[in-house]
């Protein structure tokens, strides 16, 4: 810098010698520029992606619901379906085109935005710290708080840009301006709130993976809280008001525009961000909140299966807790189902379809099949440990011993398959017990349990698909997620898109028998299990003949 050499008395000279940023903030600008350079493709893609989705949804909504009666009919039907309310929330003005078109975006898409903000924030804080990159930079003049400040600056700016661009896109798509601004600012403020959550989590744990897991856990729990709150009668209960995602719904864009609610996520930021800085000031670089404690000098792990369990059980435990909580809550909502279908016409229809039990069956079947899809997501993530272990170089050390490829691959595959089965067992039990205690009908426990267990083969097909991709196209293990999302979209919108029947039939979830499950479902379940086994065998065959990644 020439600034230090230039000690002239002219005002210009003095401005240049002014200490730019010293102390704990030194180097913030450099870090921001570095982060923008690293994410120069990622960030524009995210921001434009959200704006594009917003625009196309606004435009499509006007075509789908051309007049007020069609909107009111659709909104009333959605508000009357408990599973939709649990998943997406309520429409607070049935006549509003915006509120109806964006129903899937106020909570669901907001949660996805929150996940992206968590990933972004952790990546530039704990991620860089764990990898040692910050240490590399810290040798220069880098203040203690600079990484956190620059990470938050990037996350906040990304949230705000996403919100503002989406607001513009929504009004371009034909929706009213004030509502669009409220909606966009809702996304911005919620994105900022979860960035702050991630900033705090990054100070608590020593590994980026744990910090991301903790933050995403917060998103999942707050999402569940608002589901409980939204399902309460009447209107949102206190549970919705305890969740930042719930706040975003209570902004009620296009349905009254409650601007003051936007202050809640900002207030949360004002609490969490200083807390993160206080925690950062109290710890060493690279350390978590707790000191790293010494572990055993002797190992008890007896083989690769023991290792796979050791590497995966914490995550599986977290999934189990989430599934049980979610299951009990969802199950206990069965009592509300009848109230939900308050329109006499809907209740008559349901009764005609199979009596009052059909109401609870339909509700439980919908929830259990959602849990089945989520269990498949667990199966994929657990099976993809194979690839992450390989690229981390851990597999090389193991295959250097007398361990065969087959035995090693079986370890994580077995954990994935068993984990899926365990999750569905817990789903069935918790939904069943929740439902049984809500309506005093003990028979709901075995009914729910059988229905949940019937979801296992379909989830195994996806788990085994992950193994097949690992065996043959190891660089594309991420593609299994695309497959899962495609199948979900096909199930959700396939009819709407006029998708050909054979394509719809490709989804394993479509072949899973729904409640009530009886002997007629056995052939389909057997076929799914055989498909899973064949995909697994295919994966093994590929893995046995390919090179280990360097």
């Amino acid at each position, binding site marked *: 810098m020439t600034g230090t050499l230039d000690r002239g008395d002219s005002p210009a000279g003095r401005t240049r010698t002014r200490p730019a940023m010293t102390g704990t903030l030194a180097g913030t600008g450099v870090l921001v520029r570095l982060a923008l350079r690293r994410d120069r493709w990622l960030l524009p893609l995210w921001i434009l992606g959200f704006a594009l989705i917003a625009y196309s949804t606004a435009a499509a909504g006007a075509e789908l619901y051309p007049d007020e009666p069609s909107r009111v009919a659709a909104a009333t039907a959605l508000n009357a379906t408990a599973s939709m309310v649990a998943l997406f929330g309520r429409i607070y003005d049935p006549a509003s085109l915006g509120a109806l078109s964006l129903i899937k975006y106020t909570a669901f898409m907001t949660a996805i935005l929150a996940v992206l903000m968590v990933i972004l924030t952790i990546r530039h804080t704990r991620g860089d710290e764990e990898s040692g990159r910050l240490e590399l930079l810290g040798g220069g003049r880098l203040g203690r708080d600079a990484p956190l400040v620059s990470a938050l600056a990037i996350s906040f700016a990304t949230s705000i840009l996403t919100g503002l661009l989406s607001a513009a896109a929504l009004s371009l798509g034909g929706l009213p301006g004030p509502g669009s601004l409220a909606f966009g600012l809702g996304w911005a403020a919620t994105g900022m709130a979860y960035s702050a959550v991630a900033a705090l989590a990054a100070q608590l744990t020593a590994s980026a993976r744990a910090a991301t897991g903790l933050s995403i856990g917060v998103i999942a729990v707050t999402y569940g809280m608002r589901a409980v709150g939204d399902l309460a009668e009447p209107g949102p209960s206190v549970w919705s008001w305890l969740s930042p995602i719930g706040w975003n719904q209570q902004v009620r864009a296009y349905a009254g525009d409650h601007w003051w609610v936007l202050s809640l996520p900002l207030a949360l930021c004002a609490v969490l961000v200083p807390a993160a800085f206080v925690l950062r000031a109290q710890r060493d670089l690279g350390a978590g909140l707790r000191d790293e404690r010494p*572990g055993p000098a002797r190992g008890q792990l007896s083989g690769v299966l023991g290792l796979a369990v*050791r590497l995966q059980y914490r995550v599986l435990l977290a999934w189990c807790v989430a599934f049980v909580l979610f299951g009990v809550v969802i199950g206990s909502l069965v009592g509300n189902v009848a109230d939900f279908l308050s329109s006499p016409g809907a209740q008559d229809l349901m009764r005609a379809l199979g009596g009052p039990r059909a109401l609870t069956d339909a509700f439980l079947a919908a929830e259990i099949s959602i849990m089945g899809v989520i269990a498949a997501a667990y199966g994929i993530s657990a099976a993809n440990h194979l690839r992450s272990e390989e690229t981390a170089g851990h597999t090389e050390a193991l295959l250097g011993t007398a361990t065969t490829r087959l035995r090693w691959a079986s370890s994580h595959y077995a954990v994935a398959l068993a984990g899926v089965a365990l999750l569905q067992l817990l789903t069935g039990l918790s939904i069943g017990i929740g439902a049984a205690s809500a309506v005093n009908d003990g028979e709901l426990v075995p009914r729910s349990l059988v229905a949940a267990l019937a979801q296992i083969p379909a989830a195994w097909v996806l788990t085994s698909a992950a193994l097949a991709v690992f065996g043959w196209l190891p660089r594309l293990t991420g593609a299994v997620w695309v497959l899962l999302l495609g199948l979900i979209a096909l199930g959700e919108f396939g009819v709407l898109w006029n998708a050909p029947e054979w394509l719809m039939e490709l989804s394993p979830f479509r072949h899973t028998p729904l409640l009530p499950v009886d002997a007629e479902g056995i052939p389909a379940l057997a076929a799914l299990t055989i498909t899973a086994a064949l995909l697994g065998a295919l994966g093994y065959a590929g893995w046995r003949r390919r090179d280990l990644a360097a």
Partner: protein
Amino acid sequence: MSNVVEMTGVVKRFGTVAALDGLDFQVAAGEVHGFLGPNGAGKSTTLRLLLGMLRATSGSARVLGLDPWHDVATLHRRLAYVPGDVALWPNLTGGEVIDLLGRLQGGQDRARRDRLLQTFDLDPTKKSRTYSKGNRQKVALVAALATDAELFLLDEPTSGLDPLMEDAFRGCVRELRDQGRTILLSSHILSEAEALSDRVSIIRAGRVVESGPLAQLRHLTRTSVTADVASVPPGLDLLPGVHDVVVTDHRVSAQVDPAGLAPFLQALTAAGLHALTSQPPTLEDLFLRHYGPAGSLETARR
């Protein structure tokens, strides 16, 4: 069976790039064999091929008389491997990793394991996440050296170790050799291979370009001679086998082929020799001989 490792005409392609290009390579039983080459020459690829982690595009490879691709389980019970880039599970302790690898190997000598921990001054209770590069290397070394293997495949085993630990490592290797075990040691650190190896092979661009006992390879290169003489005789650079003659006042230095040493020294003695230093060819010279002309090593140094 005299050769523990036997590779003939091995080719390994990654896409269009031939990492190994007709590699012939032998390691005899009971020797410490130095496997030398610069980064990217194909050392790690060769070792990973010998471990069945990669499959040869063509050619044949036998390890302990077995096929490294098909007989993995039987073969790996008899060998131990230290990868070039040691990656450990961050939340396991060093001790847990050592014991796990030992069990997977089919058992390790507990007393030997504990002795090695002392030798390498490694705390096994620390989480792997907190280990430095050198300490991660030690974990892999202890796990491998504590086993009862016949063949040790060590890929740049001392990278990250401090000189004291390098010394400890050398002691361990000599001990293993005295027990009659075979050690294949890849390295780009010449002094390390020079200090330990009975024989060396030099790999360049996927081929072994030179292989033999160190003593024999030394004949292939020039001795560096510096002499102080009363008066420098003319025409030294015209002697056969004498190169790069530099004269400053009464001092002569030159690079001399083995065959040219006798006439060169006679000429110096006749000129009134006061002092003489000669340096035997180092592996550095061997390297320069093989990599210098292509410029690969020299380019890398610039």
